[in-house]
């Protein structure tokens, strides 16, 4: 039983370490998804949002962690 709990925690830990980074990534994906639905003729806008958003989120998160 103990090993199952450890394994479950490790499984979640694979994807979520800093909660704010995980939430920010999901928000970027959600916004990109909405853009791809609202602008089906311009799918690259959603791609640009996804790429630039992820880069910005990573940079901001690291800078914040360094200050703390």
């Amino acid at each position, binding site marked *: 039983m103990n*090993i199952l709990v*450890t*394994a479950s925690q*490790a*499984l979640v830990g*694979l*994807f*979520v*370490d*800093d909660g704010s*980074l*995980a939430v920010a*990534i*999901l928000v970027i*994906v959600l916004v*990109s*998804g909405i853009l*791809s639905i609202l602008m*089906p003729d311009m*799918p*690259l806008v*959603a*791609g640009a949002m*996804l*790429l630039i958003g*992820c*880069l910005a*989120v*990573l*940079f901001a*998160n*690291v*800078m914040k*962690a*360094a*200050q703390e």
Partner: protein
Amino acid sequence: MIWTTAAPAVTTAFVSSLVEAVEALTIVLAVASVRGWRPAALGALAGLALLLLIVVALGPLLSRVPLHALQLVIGVLLLLFGMRWLRKAILRAGGVIALHDEGIAFATETEELRDQARQQETRLDWLAGLASFKAVVLEGLEVVFIVIAVGAGRGLVGPASLGALAACLVVAAFGFVIHRPLERVPENTLKFAVGVMLSAFGVFWTGEGLGVPWPGEDLAIVAIAALFLLIALAAVALTRPRVGAFP
């Protein structure tokens, strides 16, 4: 098979598996040094068998999922996984958090097992085997995820598995020969590179899942990786003086 997709997928699977295999080997060697090779090897083999079972069970399920949905789900998971690795690697490279030290990990695991030996000698082989099993399963799960994630979107699970298997065999061979943790592996540099690649795959697959026609098709992965590398290096450069300014 498109080499522009296959090469990054196989390389990413190989390098990331190298990192995980080194971490698992450290624990297996600690178990072997305290209780001998029998419980260490049995635990490791049981762990490998469980991982194989997971792969065999998951494989057929993946082929039933529609491609766009698969790309989207795997892309998002890769973003979470890859950017988590990259964030930690940047913070380590910038000196914000301590580097992972296999020597310390080996000493800690050895000491824990010796403590257990003093308390409960009779159960120790079982506990030692369990420690070996846990290390292989937990580190191996990351390898399995990476192989599926970088391979499933383009039917490259086979080549990615071979890359991962090659890395595990290389590490196991070194471990068998030197009987010590591989302390000289530039682990953070490897994690930095893998974090960049996994994040790039994550953006690419998520975009594909959303119907984004990336310019240059598969070559876009390389361009996206270059952008992640640029931002990550800039963050490392900017983090270093900040650490000094905020001791």
